[in-house]
């Protein structure tokens, strides 16, 4: 597609073809159309075939955009090693978002107690013990120990292509804030110059991609949602240093647009934690670009309507042509 799609307005007329006396939320309309499927838990949804076809199309676009860069593709399951998770430092910044996998490790008597608790409707989780697996909080977290185990980086550094379901415990009625969602990432490891050049390149690529999808966008400095008072300082530092940018699209509202892509410079944070060295022995710097696959899908549904067969031909060509 050569021409850009004109950004579609954020309009209920576009997104909602049902006439109703009471406005229904975007989430309700997604349920009504069967695009998302209720599970009884806020932020945990099934996806329809149509929804998934958009997710897969965006994933392919991300592949196409990065195809010439020679990234090594790796796919990890949505769980990672608990010791690696602990070492990653995630709990310093986001203890409230983390999800651990607990399992029954008891004996016959414990089993009987568990069943009687369920029967009585009381808490049955007391005998659950933390397993060696935690839920992956971001697609790149399982990568760093793997990269570190290979030894020092080559002079040109390394580039990885990742995609994973991720978990963050933040129940919400905003469909863009799911608890389990997919994140596509490219991760660059190398010198500060190498990783910053990578981030700049993806800022341009990501912006162009979203414009070509006919979405109104803004690129803004951002910070991660660090926990507590200490987190406010981490957030202020992150913004002051220009370490994180997000590509925002109004989805739930104009006032609080949704971050659909993020561009992150970690400096030597992960290099130090995992002892990843550059070819010259200096600590490696890292950066990543993350695509929120469900969020981009929701942005398209919000701006081009819930009937994907009625989307503009140029957009459909771009996604499935």
């Amino acid at each position: 597609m050569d021409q850009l799609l004109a950004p579609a307005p954020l309009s209920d007329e576009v997104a909602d073809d049902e006439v109703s006396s009471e406005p229904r939320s975007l989430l309700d309309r997604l349920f009504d159309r069967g695009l998302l499927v209720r599970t009884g838990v806020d932020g945990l949804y099934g996806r329809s075939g149509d929804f998934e076809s958009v997710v897969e199309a965006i994933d392919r676009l991300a592949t196409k955009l990065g195809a010439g860069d020679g990234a090594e593709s790796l796919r990890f399951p949505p769980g990672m090693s608990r010791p690696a998770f602990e070492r990653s430092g995630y709990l310093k910044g986001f203890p409230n978002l983390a999800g651990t996998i607990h399992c029954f490790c008891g004996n016959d008597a414990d089993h009987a107690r568990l069943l009687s608790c369920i029967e009585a409707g009381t808490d049955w989780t007391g005998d659950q013990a933390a397993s060696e697996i935690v839920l992956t909080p971001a697609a790149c977290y399982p990568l760093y120990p793997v990269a570190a185990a290979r030894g020092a980086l080559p002079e040109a550094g390394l580039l990885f292509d990742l995609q994973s379901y991720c978990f963050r415990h933040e129940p919400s009625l905003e469909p863009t804030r799911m608890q389990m969602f997919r994140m596509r990432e490219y991760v660059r490891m190398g010198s500060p110059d190498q990783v910053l050049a990578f981030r700049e390149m993806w800022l341009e690529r990501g912006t162009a991609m979203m414009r070509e999808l006919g979405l109104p966008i803004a690129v803004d400095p951002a910070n991660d949602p660090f926990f507590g008072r200490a987190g406010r300082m981490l957030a202020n530092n992150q913004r002051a240093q220009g370490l994180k940018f997000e590509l925002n699209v109004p989805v739930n509202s104009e006032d609080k647009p949704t971050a659909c892509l993020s561009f992150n410079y970690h400096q030597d944070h992960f290099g130090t934690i995992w002892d990843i060295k550059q070819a010259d022995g200096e600590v490696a710097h890292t950066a990543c670009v993350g695509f929120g696959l469900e969020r981009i899908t929701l942005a398209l549904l919000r701006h081009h309507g819930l009937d994907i067969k009625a989307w503009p031909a140029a957009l459909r060509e771009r996604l499935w042509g």
Partner: protein
Amino acid sequence: MVLSQDVRETLKSVAALSETIDGIGDDDNLFDKGLDSFGSVQLMLALEERYDIEFPDNLLNRRSFSTIRIIGETVNKLTLSAAA
């Protein structure tokens, strides 16, 4: 009155600086000497506990923890306002 020596004692509790603090000048930038963001949080919490103060939101930034002199001045202001 909080002296730079007092601040240095607290800085010793921060892993990134515990070994090198004696060679760091009062006006040296601590972030250039190995202090990172998580270390600055650790430092903030240690100062709050030691001096029974609370850093207000407008001071939760890198500058407030950038040098021993600035930390000392900031802590002095906060202890004075706490005593007032």
